[in-house]
Structure formats: structure tokens, C-alpha cells
């Protein structure tokens, strides 16, 4: 009886041990990667390369997603608004939902899908083929050389991509508003513009910055802790994507709560 209870308890502890250790490892990596931003040597070429992969590479999909989500929002909102005879306010709602939520979250999820997974599989392959060890043996810190450039590049590109997605989304909403809902273009753009306050804009730019940290560090973290050959690379890639996506939603809720309680809304 006693023995089995003991066994159960240690079993539970073991279950907890793994995630706690992983979290600790993650924060260590995050700390080092952030500290390295202010340290030499800087690998400018790697930052440029990553900016190209993340920013330019993700542009087409971000434009597509932005456009269609703006258009869909305009259709949905107009239906709800028509009950109150307020179809003219469609632009306001499209603008608010895009800038506050859809732009940052959808863009970040897209970039997580493209780049967190890309980073996890690239770094994971390097780990299992001893290239990370070789890097250390040849005098470079893998965090400085691999993680920090990806962190910097994502933090620069994700807010920019979000701005593009927001704008393209508004254009998507505009096309629906003009051709389906027959709203005058001036009325639409005025309501879009008037809807936004500073609170919305800061929220809309702060979120992608935080998500950028999540997207890049999750990819690198799971990549660097890959074990078990090519199969392990596959596993890391999936884990990076899943964790990045979940964290984006959790942090989105927290940040939104902070901004809502700050007033505005």
C-alpha cells in the first residue's frame, strides 16, 4: 500500500520534471540569445539572410491571408451590423479586428508555420550531424551564430509583415464593402481610419514583437535540443510549431487583457 503510493508520487514527480527542466533550458537559451544582441561578434550576413528568408519569403502568404481575412471580416461584420442598420460601420469593425487581433495573430501563425519549423529542422539537422559540435569546436558560439540572428531578424520582420497584412486586409474589406455592400469608398476609408486609436496601434505592433520572440526562440530551442537522428528532426519540427502556436494564443490573451484594462476599448 505504502510502497505503491510512493511509487505513484515519484511517477508524478517524474512527469513534472521533464517540462520544468525544458522550461528552465528554454529560459537559459532565451537569456543568452538576448544578451548576445549587445555582444560581439555580430554576424550581419546571417541576420540579412534570415531577414530575407522570413520577410521576403513570407510576403506572398501573408498578403494572401491578410486579404482574405479582411474580406471575410467585412462580410461577416456587415451581416451582424445590418441587424442594427449600421452597415456603414463595417470599416470600423474590420479595422479594429485586423489591427488588434487578426493581423498580429494570423501573421505570426503563418510565420511560425514557415519559419519556426524551418529553424527547428535546420538546426535539428545540424545538431544530429554534429555540425553544432563542430561549430563549438571551431570557435563559434552556436547561440551567437545561429539563434541571435534569427531572433533579431524575426523581431524586425514580423511587425513589418503585420503592418502589411493589416493594410492588405483593409483593402480586402474595401473590395467587399464597395462591390458587395455598396458602401462608398470615402465612407469606408474614413471609418477605417477613425476607428484606430493609439492604444490599438501600440497593441497591434507590440503583439507581433512578442510573438516574434516566441516564433524564433521556439524554433531554435527545439532545433538545438534535437536527439535521435532524422526522426528526431521531424519530432522537433512538429513540437516547435505546436508550442509556438499555443504560446501565441496564450500570450495574445494576456496582452489583450493588459491593453483592455489600460483603458481604451
Amino acid at each position, binding site marked *: 500500500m505504502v510502497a505503491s503510493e510512493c511509487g505513484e508520487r515519484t511517477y508524478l514527480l517524474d512527469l513534472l520534471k521533464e517540462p520544468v527542466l525544458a522550461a528552465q533550458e528554454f529560459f537559459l537559451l532565451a537569456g543568452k540569445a538576448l544578451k548576445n544582441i549587445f555582444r560581439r561578434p555580430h554576424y550581419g550576413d546571417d541576420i540579412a539572410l534570415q531577414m530575407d528568408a522570413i520577410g521576403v519569403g513570407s510576403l506572398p502568404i501573408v498578403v494572401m491571408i491578410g486579404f482574405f481575412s479582411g474580406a471575410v471580416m467585412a462580410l461577416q461584420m456587415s451581416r451582424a451590423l445590418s441587424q442594427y442598420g449600421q452597415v456603414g460601420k463595417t470599416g470600423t469593425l474590420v479595422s479594429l479586428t485586423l489591427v488588434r487581433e487578426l493581423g498580429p495573430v494570423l501573421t505570426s501563425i503563418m510565420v511560425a508555420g514557415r519559419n519556426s519549423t524551418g529553424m527547428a529542422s535546420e538546426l535539428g539537422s*545540424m545538431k544530429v550531424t554534429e555540425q553544432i*559540435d*563542430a561549430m*563549438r*569546436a*571551431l*570557435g563559434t558560439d552556436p547561440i551567437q551564430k545561429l539563434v541571435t540572428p534569427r531572433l533579431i531578424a524575426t523581431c524586425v520582420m514580423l511587425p513589418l509583415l503585420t503592418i502589411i497584412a493589416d493594410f492588405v486586409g483593409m483593402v480586402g474589406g474595401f473590395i467587399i464593402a464597395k462591390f458587395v455592400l455598396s458602401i462608398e469608398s470615402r465612407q469606408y476609408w474614413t471609418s477605417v481610419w477613425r476607428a484606430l486609436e493609439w492604444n490599438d496601434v501600440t497593441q497591434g505592433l507590440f503583439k507581433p514583437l512578442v510573438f516574434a520572440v516566441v516564433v524564433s526562440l521556439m524554433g531554435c530551442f527545439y532545433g538545438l535540443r534535437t536527439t535521435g537522428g532524422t526522426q528526431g528532426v521531424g519530432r522537433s519540427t512538429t513540437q516547435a510549431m505546436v508550442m509556438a502556436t499555443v504560446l501565441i494564443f496564450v500570450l495574445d490573451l494576456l496582452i489583450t487583457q493588459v491593453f483592455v484594462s489600460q483603458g481604451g476599448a
Partner: protein
Amino acid sequence: MAEPARIAVLRFENVTVSFDGDVALRDISFAAYEGESRIILGAAGSGKTVLLKTAMGLTKPESGKVFVFGQDISAMPEKRLFDIRGKIGMLFQESALFDSLNIAENVAYPLLNQPSIRCPKAEVLPRVKRTLEFVELGGTLEKFPSELSGGMRRRAAIARAVVTEPPLQMYDSPTAGLDPITAHTIIALLIKERDVSQATTLLVTHRFQDGNLMANFRYNSEQGVLEPARNGAKQKSSTTFMVMKEGRLIFENDQDSIEASKDPYIGKFVKQRV
């Protein structure tokens, strides 16, 4: 090498390494001196790779101490390890060439990145070319590792390991999975590198004949060929054979003793000699 100052280039003192409770190295102690060659034999999983990685500070010992050039590296922070690693050349078992860089960039990597090397920019390319010619890969500068055969990759990785002319050189299974001709070429290269640079050499291998070549042949720099070491006895004494089994160092002595050994495990390595 008259009256050598016997500095221990590499010294293990009761080193134990384990991964999540699985012991990979058990209480290993040995010392390698300047100019010495060490041949490390052992079955798969016996801890040879872990031994080399521990000597470089890539893996930390759980207990015991590792001294490289007289400095205790077992508790050294990564930043300070870079200076020591600049003096060690390592060939990884899977070559570990960087996929994203071409061969010339791979070989130039330690020259450009090793903080203690500080090679002038203008000298990088000539040195890279010279080293690649040394391993007979003069025409592959622009190629990527994925475009080379396994044996060529191995040689490119050797070039990367020795381009900085490190005084301690470690090679992890340089002949594994290669045909006998290529394997012989590679060992000849290592002998050439050892005799030209007078470096301390650790060679991990499954093939006793690699060790036999290392122990009994030398590079004749005038004719550019391998020749039997003239004073065999002396040459032999600077080559030591080590045998690993399940994380333990079970044998450490010269070629005559290993050939005379009655241990069946050791005998299996010696007998495969053709």
C-alpha cells in the same frame, strides 16, 4: 626530438562521463605527451567518440579532471575554452562539414572564426588552397559538401581540422565505411600531417591495420612517399594503443604488447589484421 620536454598535451584523471544515468566513460585516466600518437580501438558504443569530445570540452565530465596543455578544462566556461580549442584539430565521425558553406568556406571557417587564430584576411585563401591540395582536393573549392563522395568529404573535413596547424590533432574513425584504397590514402595523409607538423595525434579507429601503419611508417618529405620507419623500435615507443570496452580503458601499451595480448576482446581487433 632529442631530450623532449615531457609536457602532457592531454591528460585524463579519473574521468567519468554519463548521459542521464547511462555511463559512457568510466574512470578513465591516461596522459598523452608531445609528439606521441595514440590509437584508440574499441567496439561500437564503447565511448571513443565521447572520449574525444570530452577532451575538447564539448562534453563535460561528471567527475574527474581533463587537462589540455596543462590547463584544467573540466570546469572552464565556454568562452575560455575557445582559446584551447584553437590548438586542437578534430575530425568528427560524420565529417560535420557545414552544409550551407562550400568546401573552401568550410576550410576557411576556423581561420576566420577561431578567436585565438587571427589569420590575416589576405592569407586565408592561400592557406585554404594549400591545405586542400595537401589532401588532394585542389579542384573542389567551389563545391558543396553534398556534391562530394564520402571519402572526399572525409578529406575535406581533415583539411578543416588541420588548416590551423594545431599541435593536438584528433581523428574520429577517419576510415570507417571506406574502401581499402581510400582508407589507406587517408591514413597516409594523417601520417604525413603528423610527421610534417610534429603534432600529437589521437586516432580512433575500428581497424588495427590503421594503427599498424601509424606506428610503423613515416612520411619521407624528400620523396613525398610513405616508408617504413627506419629505427622501428623508437618509432613504436611513441605510438601507444588504447582499447576501450563499455566505457572503460582496458588496455594501454605499445604494439608488441597488444599483439601478444591474450584477452579475446583485444584479440578480435588485432586478428583482423590482413
